[in-house]
């Protein structure tokens, strides 16, 4: 099928502002939007710049805004995107992070927020002989938030983040949740302190754009609400 693409382009060496590039490519209906972008880059305009690594929804490097909604280019079928966009697929970089070139954004502000929540196991007890054991129920408690691939689709879909880049953002809260509710971890107090700050968890207005955007289907708003409750009650139930 013929696929029409509208891609937001920006070259820092030439452009002051982004502009729209229009391309027409031939694709199978079951190709992904990523394939169509590849086609543009490989056969039409080699300067088109985008990030991708695995091309199979694992690495989280090709999150972008497709037809006005954040998702992974490697997980959206051309057929669906064409239907949705009534014959044109619109592709933009994630909103709210600085655009370095075309579809590539600077992820550093995102990772800075990620680091703030101490996203690693904190446990000062001497390591046991073998692994730190945990019951299946204890593992289940934070299962949902272990799935995050740090693609930033959630944070950059959030109006709270658009309004204020200081907001720590849904992804960082998801990562914090993953450790706060891990029975082996002892850093919950410190993380909850970080998330209780002015630009922490209370900036969430339960708008749900993050949940809709998450390619891993994580119920982010629920995780955020659980963190809010933990801050309020001091309990990690």
């Amino acid at each position, binding site marked *: 099928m013929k696929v029409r693409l509208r891609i937001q382009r920006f070259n820092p060496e030439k452009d002051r502002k982004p502009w729209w590039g229009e391309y027409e490519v031939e694709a199978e209906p079951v190709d992904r939007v990523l394939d169509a972008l590849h086609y543009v880059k490989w056969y039409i305009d080699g300067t088109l710049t985008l990030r991708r690594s695995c091309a199979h929804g694992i690495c989280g490097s090709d999150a972008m805004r497709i037809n006005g909604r954040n998702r992974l280019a490697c997980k959206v079928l051309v057929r669906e995107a064409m239907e949705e966009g009534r014959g044109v697929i619109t592709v933009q970089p994630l909103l709210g992070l600085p655009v370095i070139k075309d579809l590539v954004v600077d992820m550093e502000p995102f990772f800075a927020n990620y680091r703030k929540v101490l996203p690693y196991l904190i446990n000062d007890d001497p390591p046991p002989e073998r692994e730190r054991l945990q019951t299946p129920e204890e593992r289940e408690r934070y299962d949902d938030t272990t799935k995050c691939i740090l693609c930033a689709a959630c944070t950059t879909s959030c109006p709270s983040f658009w309004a204020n880049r200081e907001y720590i953002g849904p992804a960082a809260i998801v990562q914090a949740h993953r450790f706060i509710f891990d029975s082996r971890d002892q850093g919950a107090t410190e993380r909850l302190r970080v998330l209780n700050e002015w630009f922490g968890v209370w900036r969430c207005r339960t708008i749900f754009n993050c949940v809709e955007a998450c390619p891993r289907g994580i119920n982010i708003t*629920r995780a955020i609400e659980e963190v809010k409750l933990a801050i309020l009650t001091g309990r990690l139930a």
Partner: protein
Amino acid sequence: MADPKKNPQKERQGVWRARGDFWAPSAGLGLVLREIPRYRGRVHQWAWVANRIAGLGTLLFLTIHILDTSLVYFAPDLYNHTLSLYRHPLFGIGEIILVGMVLWHGLNGLRIAASDFRPHLWAPHHQARMILGTFAIFLALYIPAAVIMGNIVLQKSILGR
């Protein structure tokens, strides 16, 4: 615009950020207002937008109301004049809208407060249903109220009875 001569590739490594060689829309209310209609969020996003508009509208009314009531003390004549202005049908219609905003803001707030202590309710499909439910209650209360109020406005200020 960056000058390519002054900006060879190796120099760019690691320093581009300091040189501001990127594009970023400035964060803030402007960006939210511009992007909310463009981002294709679902019913949850619109419930929030409606909640904000209703909240701001109510705040605006409260501010005006506090100001005009304070006239009683500072300038009684002006106060009476203001009151007569309020009898204009435009204000009657404004009142009908105000009731709608207070009602939506209140009901939507109740939905959020009711969910806040039950994290399992924060699933998109649950909330979508609760939002639609809230909207149904809103309509059930608001339509009769608006009809009654509209009738009064019509009778009083337009037909002059």
